[in-house]
């Protein structure tokens, strides 16, 4: 999640999950009960409190500091589920090397971040109306065999 200074457009905060030595990128484990998905898969709520993250100020900047993030994200499917991906017919390094059924969605979110010397909270109205959201089920790697 990034913050930009409105007048200059410059990025001034970059909150991310860090990178493991394996290359696992900005991906953190959550408690299983953080996510609630409706039976038909058309609505989901992700509620996370006080997860430890990293503030790197700008994308890939070398200077970092620890931060704590709480957030709540809701997804609501707005379209029908359709097939996505090209299975194992493409190389494993291809972006289409997966199979899934996804629906375009609308998502809203609230974020709160605290770090040494600074904190911020999202204002009402944060959504994917200027972005994009999707939700569904997928498989990749070993599960394409």
């Amino acid at each position, binding site marked *: 999640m990034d913050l930009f200074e409105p007048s200059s457009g410059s990025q001034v905060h970059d909150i991310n999950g860090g990178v493991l030595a*394996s290359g696992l990128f900005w991906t953190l484990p959550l*408690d299983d009960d953080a996510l609630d998905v409706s039976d038909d898969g058309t609505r989901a709520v992700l509620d996370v409190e006080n997860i430890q993250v990293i503030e790197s100020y700008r994308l890939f900047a070398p200077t970092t500091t620890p931060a704590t993030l709480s957030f709540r994200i809701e997804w609501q499917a707005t379209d029908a589920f359709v097939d996505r991906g090209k299975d194992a017919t493409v190389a494993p390094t291809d972006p289409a090397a997966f199979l899934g059924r996804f629906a375009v969605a609308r998502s809203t979110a609230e974020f709160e971040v605290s770090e040494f010397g600074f904190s911020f909270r999202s204002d009402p109205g944060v959504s994917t109306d200027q972005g994009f959201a999707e939700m569904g089920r997928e498989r990749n790697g070993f599960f394409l065999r």
Partner: protein
Amino acid sequence: MRSISGASITRRRFVQTATAAATGVTGATLVRPARAAAWDHEPARRAVVPPNPIPGGVTPPNHAQIHLWPAGDPAVTLPFSHGTLKGFDVDPSTITDFRGFSALAYHAGTATGSDGSTYNLESHMTVLRGRYIASDGTLRFGTFSFI
């Protein structure tokens, strides 16, 4: 272990001494705080065995490959980073050998900082929950978020 005034003192002994000073309890009658006792006997919290990253991903200018695809509607240009999305047939997952629920979102809006300033906010968030082959080769179940 640290040395204070030439004497050797462990972190635990320091806590005991400080507690005694604070409560007025000294010597053999010291009742150690419950948290310190728990620290002695508590097993280490079990770590989540992480999944492996997807083998592919983008390579930003002047940077090594990152194991992430910006999946989504290629007609969308994000309002503040001006990033573009790479298409619908693009894996939203950052982890490989995965099967389960997946959702992603690119949010935009504003945020208010503790300095009183208003900032433009943009996110790329993903949640993944399901079975995965962990980095130790075992089949596991977990929930993860790309942040």
